[in-house]
């Protein structure tokens, strides 16, 4: 038999190696996966309902869903106009205000209050764009929660939510 031909011994050697590698990976996986959110954490992330009726115009409230702070901003007419009258193409993360609120509910802005830079909570009604300002590294968001200045790469994220009635939303 030619020495360059793979032998049965070569096959057995490689097959054993593959079995050992797969077995090791299988044994390591639980050690890695245990770090992910556990069943109770996931269960606690069920949707929540928020009553909007007590929120006055111009007021921002903060609720928590899945441990994440969420701003519900009852925007004033001036703030809505400022958010709409922007040249969208010039924004770092171009998005019209209409894509960031529910149609017919332009006064209600619901967003995840986590700065897209490194996760601090921005301050509401602050900064040169009358929107949000992150004190950690100076990112500035406008009244639509879009990034305008500073190191954050993206607009403030929007949670999944829907209007159950005109004064009630379900987040999640």
């Amino acid at each position: 038999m030619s020495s360059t031909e793979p032998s049965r011994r070569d096959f057995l050697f490689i097959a054993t190696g593959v079995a050992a590698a797969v077995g090791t990976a299988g044994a390591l996986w639980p050690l890695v996966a245990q770090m992910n959110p556990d069943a109770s954490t996931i269960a606690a992330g069920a949707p929540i309902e928020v009553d909007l009726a007590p929120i006055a115009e111009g007021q921002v409230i903060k609720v928590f869903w899945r441990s994440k702070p969420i701003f519900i901003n009852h925007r004033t007419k001036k703030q809505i106009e400022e958010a709409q009258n922007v040249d969208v193409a010039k924004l770092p993360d171009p998005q019209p205000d209409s894509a960031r609120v529910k149609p017919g509910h332009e006064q209600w802005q619901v967003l995840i209050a986590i700065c897209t830079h490194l996760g601090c909570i921005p301050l509401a009604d602050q900064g040169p764009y009358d929107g949000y300002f992150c004190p950690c590294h100076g990112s500035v968001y406008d009244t639509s929660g879009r990034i305008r200045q500073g190191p954050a790469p993206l607009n403030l994220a929007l949670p999944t939510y829907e209007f159950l009635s005109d004064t009630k939303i379900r987040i999640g």
Partner: protein
Amino acid sequence: MSGHTTYQPKNAFMQWLERRLPIAGLAYSSFVVYPTPRNLNYWWTFGGILAFMLGVQIVTGVVLAMHYTPHVDYAFNSVEQIMRDVNYGWLLRYLHANGASMFFLAAYIHMFRGMYYGSYKEPREVLWILGVILLLLMIITGFMGYVLPWGQMSFWAATVITNLFSAIPLVGEPIVTWLWGGYAVGNPTLNRFYALHYLLPFVIAGVVVLHLWALHVVGQNNPDGIEPQNEYDTVAFTPYATIKDTFLLAVFCVLFAWFVFYIPNFLGHPDNYIPANPGVTPTHIVPEWYYLPFYAILRAIPNKLLGVTALAASIFVLMFLPWLDTSKVRSAKYRPLYRQFFWVFVVVCIGLGWLGSKPPEGNYVLFARIFTVYYFAYFLIILPVLGRVEKTKPLPNSIATAVLGEGVAIGAAAPPPHRA
């Protein structure tokens, strides 16, 4: 290298043990008769100080762990209980918290010494890289330890630092969730940080053993950056290095004690005495002083991914230093140009530290950018080019002539050093 003598115990039990486990012989050849260059100055004592600080941190840390509760509802109060109720708890915690600062201070001096005298150059590349790995482990361990008191700074430091990983394209967000064990920093995060904060110092101790092993293979560098050639160039570790290390360790402990007993909170942040509140970010968050230069580099760059990349690169670039510095001459003593660039680099590092503590606005950002450029240019442009163009001073023939001068007949005017 010369100087290794065979350890021959007189005691019958030690003779019996030596034939079975030559541990006393190993200690004798490593810490007693081990030949050290005779021209070592006090900058060479920081390795011993670092070993001492690692011991202090492990001992105080293990004791603190006996009183601490790693749970979001109890962590803050358990630290306060250590401070108020536990016997000598205030002392142990202040030793541990300020010990971290002293540990980093000694590590930075140790590294600047290595850079000034070219200690990372052939054949000490692996020794240097192990040192950079130790720094990286210290940074991770220190960060996790800072999270444990679960004050406002703890919580938001954990949030900001773990979010650095969210800059990684595609897999960033899943990695952050995986690190947290939830949808935000919470109890699972605190628990795993506690487990890892307890584990990593022992990993550090393990890498220190490798660091010492590598050191004992290649031998110590010295202020003249030339290899010892014969017994006139070296002295025995004990008593010469031992007594020098002990003296500066004592001086260092005075500084340590001054912090612990007089200004124990000087290096901390008042905000960390406010319990963690996931709903409010403190208006001005800064890391501990020993991370500030890296933090300044992160903030100097107005792009998230590039900023995080620069932060990581500022540490990893150190690993390539042995090959970035192209000069064959080790010591800055014989490199007049390098010496000037080096001191500018030191000023830049300290300047970045100062800028990291300032708010990210106006001229602070401008200077942080200039200093960041110099930081990377030093490694990536200045050192590679300097080694090719610099005219170095002539090196002495041996360490003995560097110390004693050319005219002295060795062995006559200067008797060979005493050997243990």
